[in-house]
């Protein structure tokens, strides 16, 4: 009765051959991948250098002002700057800068790729449908799976971490950019066309500004997804707060884990609220013109 309960048709996949092929591909094109790796590592390094050369109090004051002006409440500014100070007081300022530089590098690249892709997809129903399963896969594939090829091609370190972050975090900005542009009122688009707009005038003067709230929501989501990759990326040698969590897990050091984990949470909250506040602040400024 085994044929009834065991699935009878099993394809024997030669996993070794696939692995070998990928490895030799990586080896054959090492120069290419090393080039990308060097570029990414330098990019992360540059951001980190910049963050390390901003005096801590400047960053605290900056967060205070962004929180205050963005949310129009003095209270928010004070709360956010205190939260930032907590990370510093836990002695994790330098690690925070490391984490932040990987996240910012990943988000920058994700936006540089994702925004144009989103715009392209908005223009064609067929492309949108074709892209859908790919986007679903990028988002639902267990993130650890990205780490394996990333390590093979780019080795351990921040370059692999950035690549994995980009793949995982790019999805929302692509989706929401495409959705936002599609949702622009058809009559507004028709009106713009009737006044003789070229395609690029239509895009930059009408569609993107009209879709901006949705696009901004996508950017915010991308930022949050990148933050959620912080600990995972530490498994392939990304240093920073995530690595601190990983060490704590390996050594079962509860307090160390909580300190680093809380810092990750604080950083995520700050990035989320400050970007949201910046956008809604802009919107309010628009309303006040009346």
């Amino acid at each position, binding site marked *: 009765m085994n044929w009834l309960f065991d699935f009878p048709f099993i394809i024997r996949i030669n996993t070794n051959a696939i692995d070998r092929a990928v490895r030799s591909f990586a080896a054959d094109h090492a120069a290419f991948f090393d080039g990308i790796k060097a570029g990414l590592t330098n990019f992360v390094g540059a951001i980190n250098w910049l963050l390390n050369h901003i005096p801590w109090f400047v960053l605290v004051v900056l967060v205070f002002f962004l929180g205050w002006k963005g949310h129009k409440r003095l209270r928010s500014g004070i709360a956010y700057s205190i939260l930032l100070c907590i990370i510093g007081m836990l002695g994790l300022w330098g690690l925070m800068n490391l984490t932040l530089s990987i996240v910012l590098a990943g988000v920058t690249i994700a936006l540089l790729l994702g925004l144009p892709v989103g715009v392209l997809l908005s223009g064609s129903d067929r492309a949108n449908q074709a892209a859908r399963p790919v986007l679903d896969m990028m988002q639902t594939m267990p993130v650890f799976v990205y780490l394996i090829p990333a390590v093979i091609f780019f080795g351990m370190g921040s370059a692999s971490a950035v690549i994995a972050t980009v793949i995982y975090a790019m999805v929302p900005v692509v989706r929401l950019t495409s959705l936002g542009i599609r949702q622009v*009122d058809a*009559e*507004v688009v*028709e*009106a*713009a*066309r*009737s*006044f*003789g*707009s*070229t395609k690029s*005038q239509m895009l930059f*003067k*009408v569609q993107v*500004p*009209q879709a*901006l709230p949705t696009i901004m929501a996508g950017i915010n989501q991308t930022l949050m997804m990148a933050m959620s990759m912080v600990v995972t990326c530490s498994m392939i040698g990304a240093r920073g707060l995530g690595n601190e969590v990983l060490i704590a897990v390996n050594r079962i050091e509860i307090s160390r884990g909580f300190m680093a984990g809380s810092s990750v949470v604080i950083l995520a909250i700050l990035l989320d609220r400050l970007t949201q506040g910046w956008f809604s602040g802009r919107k309010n400024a*628009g*309303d006040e*013109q*009346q």
Partner: protein
Amino acid sequence: MSEIIIETKNVSKLYGVRRDEAAELLRGGAEKSEVLKKTGVTTALYDVSLRIPRGKIFVIIGLSGSGKSTMVRCFNRLNRPTWGSIIFDGVDLLKLSNQELLEFRRRKVSMVFQSFGLMSHRNVLGNVAYGLEVSGMGREEREKRARESIALVGLEGWEDAMIGNLSGGMRQRVGLARALANDPEVLLMDEPFSALDPLVRNDMQFELLSIQRKLGKTVIFITHDIDEAFRLGDTVAIMRDGRLIQVDTPEGMSTNPADEYVRRFINSADKSKVLSVRNIMITPVSLIKPGDGIDHALRVMRKNELSSVYAVDGQMKLKGILTLADAMRAKRESLDLSEMIVKDIPSTSPDASVEEIIPLAAESSYPLAVLDNEGRLQGIVTKASVLSSLI
């Protein structure tokens, strides 16, 4: 310059794959629905030939699905006809290159939309200046011309307002200002006032007429409202199921409708059919009860300068009418008031149409009593109010 600014010849717009078969059927006079069933082709327009005179208001009227919106979008090539030609001032619109088409849209035509089509991220000035902006005009010049255009539609002082804060009527003024800003030769208006409430619509119609008379633009106006069509149109074209039925002046169309469909359409403009008695009845100034004394009845009539007064019981049920002459006689001969009340009087219900009660009102020597199902008096209709409702 010729008198005709746009001429369309045999313009058709079909959606679907088996268009040639559909054309064959349509040539044989098949209906839109029949063609759709047999070939799966949707007929938006079939064989429309129009000559649109310069400097006049040309109204295209039809129900939804008649092809009127498709037609107007052919004039600025938002739609490209499947067959036929559109000659605009000697230029064949279907032969324009992409660049020429952009220039054509920027200089020669502009359009006003039913739901305004305004950009919420720009203020009034930014919206009005949009057409000039995409045509590459410098900021100072385009804002100057946008302000003139805004003044023309009576929106001075609102230049910096955001679109979200304007009422429907004001939004459509912005739409009109935007369309006028690039000084087009032809203004296309696709049911521009349908989304507005009736009072605002009247204002806007008046506004459009006065602007058109002032600037002498050619206006192609789409509507489904025959009143609006006759009020605005120098020429009216009526469409049905993608075909052109009749083109004429409003007077010509009223006196000489091409077929039964046009006649029904025009009759729908006849107000007496849509108004009901409820809309025109008035509340009686005064009432008496059968038990009231003669002196009281006479006092009521004298005070309100009436020649007759209605009598009702405690539940407002109509008992009849007492005329001044009868009341005088009752007083002279000391008769009882209740004997003098005329019981056989004309009455109607509040839901009757005005057209139904015209003969009744014409014959009766008293105002008509409006009664509900239980015979209670709701109001009265005088001859004067019937007449004034028809104007």
